[in-house]
């Protein structure tokens, strides 16, 4: 039986090659701190970097994303912890979370300490707004990268039904965790048919 990615068994093990710990730390610190307004946009940048180098595939990205969604707190940091753990265990998780949180934390601390009124400078506001526009586009690109393997796979109708269910629950005002719990139940009730 093959999954939506054409793999047998649905293993979620990360692809064989992996970045060195120092490389992982650098890439996370660089990509996770490039966007403003949405952490998921940062994840999209990191996904592109890691996939380009053959260290991550869509399947693993999807698994990490799903786990992060169910983890309390900031989804992006949960994603980074799981990603780092997949590559280098505790050390990988630690450097990924540090890389994804320390630079921004230092900046927030500095801003708060000097009580900078960033709204005062028009150019800064325009730049921040433009960065937010780009971040929105990256979030949509991340959504597409997650759903793409299913749309192109053998279960298109099931995928469309799942999307419709999630959208309906979201429009009805259900919290994200409730939406995903219902989707998980829906998934267990609609297993793929075994190939003859």
């Amino acid at each position, binding site marked *: 039986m093959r*999954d*939506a990615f054409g793999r047998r068994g*649905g293993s979620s093990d990360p692809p064989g090659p992996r970045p060195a710990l120092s490389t992982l730390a650098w890439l996370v610190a660089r990509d996770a*701190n490039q966007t*403003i*307004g949405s*952490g998921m946009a940062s994840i999209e940048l990191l996904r592109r970097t890691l996939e380009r180098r053959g260290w991550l595939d869509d399947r693993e990205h999807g*698994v990490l*994303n*799903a*786990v992060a*969604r*169910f*983890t*309390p707190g*900031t989804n992006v*940091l*949960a994603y980074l*912890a*799981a990603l780092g*753990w997949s590559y280098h265990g505790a050390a990988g*998780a630690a450097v990924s979370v*540090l890389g*994804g*949180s320390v*630079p*921004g*934390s230092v900046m*927030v*601390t500095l*801003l*708060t*300490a000097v009580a900078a009124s*960033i709204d005062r400078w*028009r150019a800064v506001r325009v730049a921040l*707004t433009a960065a*937010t*526009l780009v*971040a*929105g*586009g990256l*979030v*949509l690109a*991340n*959504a*597409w990268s*997650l*759903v793409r393997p*299913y749309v192109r796979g053998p279960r298109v109708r099931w995928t469309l039904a*799942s*999307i419709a269910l999630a959208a309906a629950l*979201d429009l009805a005002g259900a919290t*994200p965790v409730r*939406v995903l719990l219902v*989707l*998980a139940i*829906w*998934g267990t009730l609609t*297993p*793929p048919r075994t190939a003859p």
Partner: protein
Amino acid sequence: MSLLLLYALLLKAYVTSFSGVGALPQIRQDLVVTYQAMTDEDLSRAVLFGRSSPGPVGLYIVSVGHAVGGVPGAFVGWLALVTPAFLAIPMLALVRRWLHLARMRTALDAVIVGSATLLVPSGILLMREAAVQLAAFVAAGL
């Protein structure tokens, strides 16, 4: 307010929410209303700083910590921010352990598709807000 209590309150708010901004109501209830350790203005400013810095939007909690306890408070805020992230590790191990089951795989597939669907409104909202603001800047001659 002691740093330990600050950490406990921020961690409680984060662990009981599933997004950085989702913790905001609980933080306001504890630090603004109950303990009066900061004002609504401080909180609004913290959110603004969080949104104006690179990285997760949830970084505003660092600014909240700074407003309450200075630089040590900011460190405590950062600690409360990163602590729940490590819960993803046992969850990942659990998912991988059961992933050989067809029903588990399909459940995970459904969650992945669902989380992608939930990202769409967020992305559209970000782009719409930014586009409206940019249009206002252009109308005002930048």
